[in-house]
C-alpha cells in the first residue's frame, strides 16, 4: 500500500481532484493485502477444523443409513400410513434391497441403526436373510411372513419407517433423556433409563466446584503476588508458572502417586496418627478435584494477577484514612476493582473444566466421568456416532455461549500472559 502511495505522488501534485479516488484505491489495496495475509490460515482452519467439526455435528441429526442402503423401501415406507401392514410393493422392494445389502457392508450399517429402535432387529435381519429365496412363487409378503412372524407385525415396519427419513432428532432428544412416544410427541424416558441429565448435571457440578475452589485459592495468592515488591513476586511467580508449563499427564501421574492408598498423603496422615487405615483419595471425586484444581489454578491466578497489578493502592489507603476499617476498605474498595479479573478467570476455568476428559478418565471413578468421556466412549467403544455427536453438540453449544460471555468481558490478549 505504501509503494502505491509513493508512486502516485507526482499524480497528486498535478491533479488534485483525483486524490480522493487514489486514496480510496490505496486503502482498498491495503485491505486486499490484509485479507490475503489472513486467508491462508483462515482456509487452513476451515478445512482442518471447521469442516471436521461441522461434519461431526451433522451426525447428531444424520439418519441416512436406511435411506442409503434401502432407498426404494425407505421412499415407499415414508408414504405408508402405518395402520395396516404395508403393501406388497414394499415387501418385494424390501426383500430385494435386503438381499443387495449383503455387499458393501450395508447390512451392518442398517443393522446397527435399526438396533437403536429395537435391540433384536439386527438378528431379525440376518435370520431373514439366511433363508430368503431369490425368487418367490407366492407373494413376497407371504414369503417374508412365513420366514419370521415378526414381519406380520406393524410394529416391525413402524420401526423401519422411523429409521427411514434422512434426518432424525432421536439422538439430540436421547442426549437430554427425552424420546418421541408412539404418538410422535416428545416425552421423558423411563426413570431408570435416564443417564445423561445426570451426566450434564455432574459435569456442571464438577466444573463449578473446581472453579469455586480455584477462585478461593487463587484470589489470595494473586493478591499477594500483585502487592509484593517485584523482585519477590517474580520468584513466587515461578511457583505458579512451572506447574503451568509442566505436562498435564506428568501432573496427573504425580497426583496418583501422592493420593494412592500407599501414597505420601496417606502415609503422612497415618504416621501422624490422624487416621488408622488409608483413605480412598484417588479414583474417585476427591482425586478429580485435586488434579483438576491443580491443573486449572494457574488459569485463575494469571488473569487475576494481571488485573490486580493495575489497581492503584491509593483508593484503599484513602478509604482507611477516612476511617474505614481495613477489611471494609478491602471489601468495598479493592474487591470491586478486581471483578473483571474474577470474571475472566472464573469463566476461563469453567470453560476449560466442562470439556475435561483425560484427568477424570485417569484419576476418577466410573461415577466421576463427564460429558467428554461419553463422547469418546460412544465414538470408540460402541460406534454410536449419532449419540457421540449429540452429546458433543450440547457440550459445544455450552462452551461457545460461555465463550461469548467471556469475549464480551475481556480482550483476548488476556487469555495468556505475554
Amino acid at each position: 500500500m505504501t509503494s502505491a502511495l509513493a508512486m502516485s505522488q507526482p499524480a497528486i501534485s498535478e491533479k488534485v481532484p483525483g486524490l480522493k479516488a487514489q486514496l480510496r484505491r490505496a486503502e482498498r489495496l491495503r485491505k486486499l493485502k490484509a485479507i490475503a495475509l489472513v486467508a491462508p490460515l483462515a482456509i487452513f482452519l476451515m478445512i482442518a477444523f471447521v469442516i471436521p467439526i461441522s461434519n461431526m455435528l451433522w451426525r447428531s441429526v444424520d439418519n441416512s443409513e436406511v435411506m442409503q442402503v434401502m432407498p426404494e423401501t425407505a421412499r415407499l415406507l415414508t408414504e405408508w400410513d402405518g395402520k395396516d401392514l404395508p403393501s406388497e410393493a414394499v415387501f418385494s422392494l424390501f426383500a430385494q434391497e435386503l438381499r443387495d445389502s449383503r455387499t458393501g457392508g450395508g447390512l451392518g450399517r442398517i443393522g446397527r441403526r435399526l438396533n437403536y429402535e429395537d435391540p433384536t432387529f439386527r438378528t431379525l435381519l440376518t435370520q431373514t436373510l439366511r433363508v430368503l429365496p431369490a425368487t418367490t412363487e407366492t407373494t413376497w409378503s407371504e414369503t417374508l411372513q412365513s420366514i419370521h412372524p415378526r414381519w406380520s407385525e406393524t410394529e416391525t415396519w413402524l420401526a423401519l419407517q422411523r429409521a427411514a427419513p434422512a434426518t432424525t432428532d432421536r439422538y439430540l432428544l436421547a442426549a437430554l433423556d427425552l424420546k418421541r412416544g408412539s404418538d410422535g410427541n416428545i416425552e421423558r424416558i423411563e426413570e431408570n433409563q435416564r443417564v445423561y441429565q445426570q451426566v450434564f448435571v455432574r459435569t456442571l457440578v464438577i466444573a463449578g466446584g473446581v472453579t469455586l475452589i480455584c477462585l478461593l485459592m487463587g484470589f489470595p495468592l494473586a493478591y499477594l503476588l500483585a502487592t509484593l515488591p517485584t523482585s519477590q513476586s517474580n520468584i513466587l511467580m515461578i511457583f505458579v508458572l512451572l506447574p503451568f508449563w509442566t505436562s498435564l499427564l506428568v501432573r496427573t501421574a504425580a497426583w496418583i502417586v501422592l493420593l494412592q492408598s500407599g501414597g505420601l498423603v496417606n502415609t503422612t496422615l497415618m504416621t501422624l496418627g490422624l487416621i488408622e487405615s488409608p483413605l480412598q483419595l484417588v479414583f474417585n471425586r476427591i482425586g478429580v478435584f485435586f488434579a483438576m484444581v491443580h491443573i486449572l489454578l494457574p488459569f485463575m491466578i494469571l488473569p487475576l494477577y494481571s488485573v490486580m497489578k493495575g489497581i492503584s493502592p491509593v483508593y484503599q489507603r484513602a478509604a482507611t484514612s477516612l476511617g474505614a476499617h481495613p477489611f471494609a476498605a478491602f471489601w468495598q474498595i479493592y474487591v470491586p476493582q478486581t471483578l473483571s479479573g474474577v470474571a475472566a478467570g472464573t469463566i476461563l476455568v469453567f470453560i476449560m473444566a466442562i470439556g475435561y476428559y483425560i484427568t477424570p478418565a485417569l484419576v476418577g471413578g466410573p461415577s466421576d466421568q463427564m460429558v467428554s468421556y461419553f463422547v469418546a466412549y460412544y465414538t470408540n467403544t460402541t460406534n454410536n456416532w449419532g449419540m457421540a455427536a449429540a452429546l458433543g453438540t450440547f457440550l459445544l453449544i455450552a462452551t461457545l455461549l460461555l465463550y461469548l460471555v467471556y469475549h464480551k468481558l475481556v480482550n483476548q490478549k488476556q487469555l495468556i500472559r505475554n
Partner: protein
Amino acid sequence: MSLQPYSSPIERIWYWTFRGFCALVLLFLMIPVLVIIPLSFSSGSFLTYPLPGFSLHWYKTIFSAGPWLDSLKNSLIVAPLATLLAMAFGTLAAVGLNKADFPGKSFILALLISPMIVPLVIVAVGMYFFFAQIGLLNSYAGLVLAHAVLGVPFVVITVNATLQGFDYNQVRAGASLGAHPLRVFFTIVLPQIIPGVASGGLFAFATSFDEVVVALFIASPTERTLPMQMFSGIRENISPAIAAMATIMIILSVLLLLVMEMLRRRSEKMRINR
C-alpha cells in the same frame, strides 16, 4: 496488606494467616512436581515412598530402544513440524489482522482463536471422522496438521499483542526508501516481532508436546507420541519409568519457562528503547 509497627494484634493475626494460606497454595502448586522427581531415581518398581534405593535404572529403560524412546522420537518429529506450520500461518495472519480493517474481521479473529476454546474431545472426534474419509488417519501428516490447528491460536495472539506496540511508520520509511515489501518484512518487522513469534511458537510446541486427546483418536501405535505413551503407562502399569520421563519433561518445562522469561524481557526492553 503490610505489617506496620503500629499494626493491631488482629491485623497481625490476619497478616500471618493470609501469608500462611498463600504459602499452602504455593506448596499445593509445587508439590506434585517435587514429588515425582525423586521417584524417578527409585531402584524399586513401584511409585511409592520411602524409596528402596537409588538407581538410574529407569532412565536406562526410557532411553534404551523400546516404546518410550520411540514415542519420544515421534513427539520430536511431530511437535517441531506442527510448531513451524503454526508459526508460519499464525504470523502471516496476525500481520494481516493488524494491517487494515476489513469486513468480518472480528468474526475471522474469533475463528482463528476457536481451536483454543472448543473442547478437545470434540476436535478429536471431528478430526477422527474427517481424517478417516480423506485417508489421513494414523499418519504423521494428520497428527502434524491437527497439532498445528491446536497451536495456531497462541501464535496469532502473541504476535498480535507484539504488533500492538509496533510503529508502522518504520514500514513506510522502508518502503519510501525503495525496499521490496518482503525485504521490509524480513529486515524491519520480523526482528522486532520475533519475541512474539517465538513465544507463540513455544506455546504451540508445548501444546503439541502435551496433547493426548486428539492423538489418542487419530494416531495408531506407529505414530504413538510421548503423551500417548504416558497415558497408557499411567493407565496400565504405573512404574518409575513414568517418573523418569516426567522428570525429563519437567526439565524441558523449566527450559521453556526460562526461554519465555528471556523473550519477555527482550520485548520489554525493545518497548523501552523506543
